[in-house]
């Protein structure tokens, strides 16, 4: 789960291709486009392909199953309380006769959507902050990195928990924003480190001497050259965001009833986990499956996009920051 910053920047930034976005230099003749190469390398990794298939399957299941499932997630079956899995209730029922299958699918929808949104938002924030800090340097850099340090001191679980009474009853989108607000710091540090080296490269200097404004250089030349790192990191953040969301919802600080997420389902289920295991086993199993699949895809993407990396979990040595140490936020 690590991306060695120094190694991966070497030689790649001026590599052309759709993912990298052509900088102002001349394209060397390549027999194959980079996209095709990356795709082939990715497809060779069986675990990553299986992970991708699993994620697509989970998404399809979460969003399509309500169309044909016999029960809705808020419906109650007054003839079946706490029944184990059966033909009419595929995952069993809860204390008040709710259908566990419908609830789990609804929770899966929420958790997957939140994970994806949080990862995307935090990637944008991380790229902006990191590139700005690295490009301008000086006091801008020092201020931004100090904020990053400060936010890293406080585990995000604690901060969001403190804020939770304020947004109770508000929409879950606010919860997404909060999760994203505390998930970008480590990526920002990686981006900053890469920007420091990119800044000194000829094509950036050329753009600067031609009078291109700074924000345009960052948007056109710096960020596109880190596309692969950002893609890899976003993928890994999806898994972390899902874990953070479920963790907070587990304590009741996240998604609020009557809506459900995998976290709230597991929290409800664990209370009677010892006697009625179906209440949390399905939600728990799907959660682990989803995060595991996302992690495999992230690993596969890294191997495919970044040939210099040493493969899965390459060592954090030499990197300015142990980039791979994306410890779950919650």
């Amino acid at each position: 789960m690590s991306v060695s910053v120094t190694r991966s920047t070497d030689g790649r930034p001026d590599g052309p291709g759709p993912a990298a976005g052509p900088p102002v230099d001349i394209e060397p003749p390549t027999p194959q486009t980079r996209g095709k190469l990356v795709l082939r390398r990715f497809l060779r990794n069986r675990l990553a392909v299986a992970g991708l298939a699993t994620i697509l399957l989970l998404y399809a299941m979460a969003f399509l199953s309500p169309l044909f499932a016999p029960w809705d997630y808020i419906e109650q079956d007054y003839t079946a309380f706490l029944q184990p899995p059966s033909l009419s209730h595929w995952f069993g029922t809860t204390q008040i006769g709710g259908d566990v299958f419908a609830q789990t699918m609804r929770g899966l929808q929420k958790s997957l959507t939140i994970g994806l949104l949080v990862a995307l938002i935090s990637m944008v924030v991380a790229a902006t902050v990191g590139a700005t800090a690295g490009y301008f340097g000086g006091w801008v850099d020092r201020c931004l990195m100090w904020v990053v340090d400060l936010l890293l001191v406080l585990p995000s679980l604690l901060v969001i928990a403190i804020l939770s009474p304020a947004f109770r009853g508000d929409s879950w989108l606010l919860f997404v924003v909060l999760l994203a607000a505390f998930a970008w710091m480590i990526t920002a540090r990686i981006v900053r480190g890469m920007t420091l080296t990119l800044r000194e490269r000829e094509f950036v200097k050329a753009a600067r001497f031609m009078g291109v404004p700074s924000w345009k250089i960052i948007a056109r030349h710096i960020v596109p050259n880190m596309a692969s790192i950002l893609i890899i990191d976003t993928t890994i953040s999806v898994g972390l965001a899902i874990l953070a969301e479920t963790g907070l919802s587990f304590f009741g600080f996240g998604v609020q009833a009557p809506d459900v997420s995998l976290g709230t389902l597991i929290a409800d289920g664990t209370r009677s986990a010892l006697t009625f295991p179906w209440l949390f086993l399905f939600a728990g199993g799907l959660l682990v499956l989803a995060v595991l699949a996302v992690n495999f895809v992230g690993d596969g993407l890294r191997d495919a996009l970044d040939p210099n990396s040493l493969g899965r979990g390459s060592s954090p040595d030499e990197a300015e920051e142990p980039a791979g140490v994306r410890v779950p936020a919650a």
Partner: protein
Amino acid sequence: MTGFLARRFLNYVVLCLVATFMAFSLASLTFDPLDKLQGRNPAPPAEVIEAKRAELRLDDPIPARFVAWAGDAVQGDFGRTVTNQSITDQLWRRVGVSLRLFLLGTTLGITVGVILGVAGAIRQYKASDYFVTLSSFVILSAPVFLIGTLLKVGALQLNQGAETPLLYFTGEFTPGFQGSWSAALLDRLQHLVLPTLAIALGQIALYSRYQRSAMLDVLGSDFLRTAQAKGLTRRKALFKHGLRTALIPMATLFAFGFGLLITGGVFTERIFAWYGMGDWFIYGVEQQDTNIVATVTLFVAVLVLVSGWLSDVLYAALDPRVRI
């Protein structure tokens, strides 16, 4: 080197202070401690609520409240809860409970993780390596609350199988336990196993992943070949030269692993009903209690920064290039 560490330390102290201030302000802004009182049925008279308001100094500006709290905290008085109990009375017992969990978790996590990582690297692509790799992937994808619950279920099965309670999963000791010194120790041990396991599993998975790849890097290096060429046995070369080099990146990882440990601790304490700092934090948020939240935040910030500082020191101890 000493100067560098001293500067880092000073920076950390400032970060601690700012982090606590941030938590204190956020909590003061979002919490409404009078809510519980006002929501009572029958509603308490207005004077009672006003008295509570004055007692909690809710009309003062937040920075003034923080200065008052921090001033007392420096002298060892962390204020009172909303229900007017002393925080300091509970504090040290809870710190002890949490630290025990954290220390055992890290020690076990690092030791077992490093051993598994090294073993995996030396026996790369053997069945044991695949097993450890796969299990650590699964564990890293599973939240602590799920692992904890599964451990509980497993312990229940075990107890039923053995027909006597072998492992307990509520509290840190049996309340009102009477017995000899050794029996009491055994009782505590029986309560200790599951929470420690819950928190250590994630750490083991994390460290073993990184130790494995760090060791693989080292295994292919020239200096190891040289060490063997000059006559060291492979075992000696691996452990005297290889392991030490491979441990260097672990020092940085240590600081980050600690964050994971703390959030893991919150879940573990809640699930196994250990009254530690993590449990207190959740209680504080539920009771809308600013002082409890600020105290726990300070504790967490100090822990995170001490571990960061420790990892700097460890790095220097392991890597001679850092020492100037």
